[in-house]
């Protein structure tokens, strides 16, 4: 009996091995064809929460829905040039106190009604009345006041006729057209935000390239082409699919379920390889294309000097501590090994694409700082951050630091940061407003929205405000740079590490993928190549 059992087990084992071998994929290297027709499918990393341009632009997962359904007056391309979308022209007067906007008369909302100048005014006033931290882009419009409490409404927005507006400023604002070139200031149909409550705020009617058709939580969000959009696409529909697992996203791309995915962190090395022609897809994804652009992104370690572990270090030694850590951390090696070159070493608090001059590497100080014996490094619980935190821990052992990495879900991590219950944390931030270093200075302006995470440095806010008024672009950039330099010299809150690029993988028939100056993806020009092309 025993012998029979052993023989039976052996037969089953051989069958299993044989079956596995026969099923093993052989020489399958090509990606499947597109999901077909004139439909474009894009992978989302998590569930969105709103398609309202204000609420949605606060949530990285909602952003794709916002830019699918809504459109701003203009966008800024990779060269820093304004690209008109809903507007036909935007011009700032020589004294910087007036901005004239001519609308495209052909622009239509989803419901077919024309986009009017009054809708633009309504949309801008709505942003100003919100609590959005970047509402400062409208702060210089006459009537805005210094904050909402003493605001009399944006009386400086003058509607000249259905398609023309003049915007009057209290102070010169020569970069105003750039500031409003984001989804935050998308044009919505006046009054639709106060209607019936609908899932994902889809009741707020927009004039974007697509209109919502079916939005299923946790599954897919289907949009249909907006015929009245100023840059009509050949794509009949856009499907945004929620695939939270990175492996499943890659598989979905391979299987033709999605046509475009963003490669983050370890996904880059899993889908692409570095060749003499740059980043190219591996054999499994042969035929796909890689699109990459520097992003307005900063990955850094933030230190809480008030924590019990670090509060013992004297203020004058903090710079030395940061310098010791900075010198020990091999940014270039990490950028090449982890991201295949799709990241840049950063030494200042502003990413290279948002400033005219990169901050030089810190040099080790002569002062030998008294380091804490050991401390915890919080890190967001995603594969990329975990890998980075692990590399930080390993590399900084040589400096005498003993670091314990603690992974946290995002809400837990933010909760701890809010309460100041941390010693140090790895973090990354992406900025969407094409406003150079201004959004980054909000971490160091004593009155800035995000100063709680950064460090208040006297005079930063006022200096930025002064620089914003300078009419000459070169002088303005230099003045901004002076503020950034001052912050870099004085701050001890951030240890900047890298600025990671936006890396997308797409099928060749998907065209018009537009990444703006900050590397933010917009669907404005998205189209699918047809047989006639």
């Amino acid at each position, binding site marked *: *009996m025993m012998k029979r*059992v052993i023989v039976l087990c052996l037969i089953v084992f051989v069958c299993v091995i044989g079956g596995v071998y026969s099923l093993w994929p052989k020489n399958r290297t090509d990606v499947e064809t597109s999901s077909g027709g004139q439909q474009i499918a894009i992978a989302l990393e998590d*569930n969105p929460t709103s398609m309202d341009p204000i609420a949605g632009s606060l949530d990285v997962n909602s952003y794709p829905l916002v830019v699918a359904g809504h459109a701003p007056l203009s966008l800024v391309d990779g060269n820093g040039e304004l690209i008109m979308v809903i507007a036909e022209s935007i011009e700032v007067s020589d004294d910087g106190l007036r901005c004239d906007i001519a609308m495209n008369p052909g622009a239509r909302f989803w419901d077919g009604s024309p986009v009017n100048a009054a809708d633009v005014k309504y949309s801008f006033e709505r942003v100003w009345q919100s609590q959005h931290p970047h509402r400062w882009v409208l702060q210089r419009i006459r009537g805005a006041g210094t904050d909402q409490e003493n605001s009399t409404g944006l009386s400086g927005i003058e509607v000249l006729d259905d398609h023309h507006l003049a915007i009057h400023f209290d102070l010169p604002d020569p970069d105003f057209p750039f500031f409003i070139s984001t989804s935050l200031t998308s044009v919505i149909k006046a009054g639709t935000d106060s209607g019936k409550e609908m899932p994902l705020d889809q009741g707020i009617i927009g004039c974007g390239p697509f209109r919502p058709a079916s939005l299923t939580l*946790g599954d897919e969000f289907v949009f249909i082409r907006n015929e009245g959009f100023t840059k009509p696409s050949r794509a009949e529909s856009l499907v945004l699919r929620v695939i939270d697992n990175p492996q499943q996203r890659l598989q979905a791309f391979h299987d033709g379920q999605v046509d475009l995915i963003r490669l983050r962190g370890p996904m880059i090395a899993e889908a692409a390889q570095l060749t003499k022609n740059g980043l190219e897809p591996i054999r499994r994804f042969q035929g796909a294309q890689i699109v990459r652009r520097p992003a307005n992104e900063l990955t850094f370690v933030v230190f809480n000097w008030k924590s019990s572990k670090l509060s013992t270090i004297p203020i004058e030694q903090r710079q030395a501590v940061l310098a010791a850590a900075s010198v020990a951390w091999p940014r270039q090696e990490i950028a090449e090994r982890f991201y295949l070159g799709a990241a840049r070493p950063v030494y200042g608090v502003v990413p290279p694409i948002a400033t005219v001059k990169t901050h030089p590497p810190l040099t080790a100080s002569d002062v030998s700082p008294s380091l804490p014996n050991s401390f915890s490094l919080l890190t967001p619980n995603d594969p990329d951050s975990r890998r980075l935190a692990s590399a930080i821990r390993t590399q900084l052992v040589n400096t005498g630091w003993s670091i314990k990495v603690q992974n946290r879900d995002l809400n837990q991590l*933010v909760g701890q940061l809010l309460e100041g219950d941390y010693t140090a944390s790895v*973090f990354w931030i992406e900025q969407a407003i094409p406003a150079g270093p201004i959004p980054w200075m909000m971490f160091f302006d004593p009155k800035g929205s995000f100063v709680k995470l950064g460090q208040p440095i006297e005079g930063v806010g006022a200096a930025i405000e002064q620089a914003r008024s300078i009419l000459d672009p070169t002088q303005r950039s230099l003045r901004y740079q002076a503020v950034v330099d001052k912050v870099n010299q004085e701050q001890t809150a951030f240890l900047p590490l890298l600025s990671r690029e936006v890396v997308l993988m797409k099928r060749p028939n998907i065209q018009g993928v537009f990444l703006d100056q900050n590397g933010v993806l917009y669907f404005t020009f998205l189209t699918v190549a047809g047989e006639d092309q």
Partner: protein
Amino acid sequence: MLLRRFTSGVARVAFFLLLVDLLLFAIFDLLPDAAVRQLGIMAIDHQLLEATRERLGVDGPAYERFATFWWHLMQGNLGRSLQGGYPISDVLVGHTTVTVALLVPVVTILLVIPIPLASFWIRPGEVAVNKAKRLLVLPVYLGLIPQFLVAVILFAIWSGLLADYLSGTSLAATTRWTLAVLSVVSMPFTLLFLAAVETFQSANRQRFTTTYRMLGMSRFQVRCRLMRNGWLALRPLAARLTLTCATGIIFTELLFGFNGLGRLLVNALRASDLNLMRVLILIMSLVVLTTSEFERRHT
């Protein structure tokens, strides 16, 4: 008598549901809320955080929010999800189909296979299982490894071996679904099979089995009689099996990417969507508690 028993059962279930919800609410009210989750690092801006809390309806006192939820629940209003503002009733309807499609074969397998299999495994009159049989039953014990591990192994088989090979064929969806069903059914199947084996073994120790044989009943006839007894004897396992099926559904849907109730629960947890989480936990608790009450009435 029956009415009294029914009323006390309902009261017991209601009490435990309230307790479960109170615990859930208390725990999650202490953690960072959905506003923090949605804003991410922007939650550092205090004014923005307060405005978002107000927009999501998570800004009032805790007792008020707890009471409002139950008041709405009693009126048949499940409320809206904090993630996207979907009516929860619509969300449940949309996701139940997927879970039911997984559960139907699972329940069918559990009803049809383990108990008859066990009854044929243990011969009438067989009290101790011999070595060879014990060896053969060893693979069944694999079903006792943690459910998430089973799901991970089967998903690895799917994504590592089969997905690429079957990609684009009509077999792909069927294979994926079959592996998912296996993933859900493994633990409850094993529990039920082993319990049934134990039951039949102890039945064999009873005199009536010998009596049946002496009366000239065939082994098949004895097995059929024992099987009926086995069904009744294994009823106390119902709540445990329901719970293992529920956890299996969660892990499987999450790994295999099925957009059912299990995945919805995990997404709600990740998004700190307390409203949706409470409704889903209450439904799950209701099913388990009701099954448990059913056991209580028959034991």
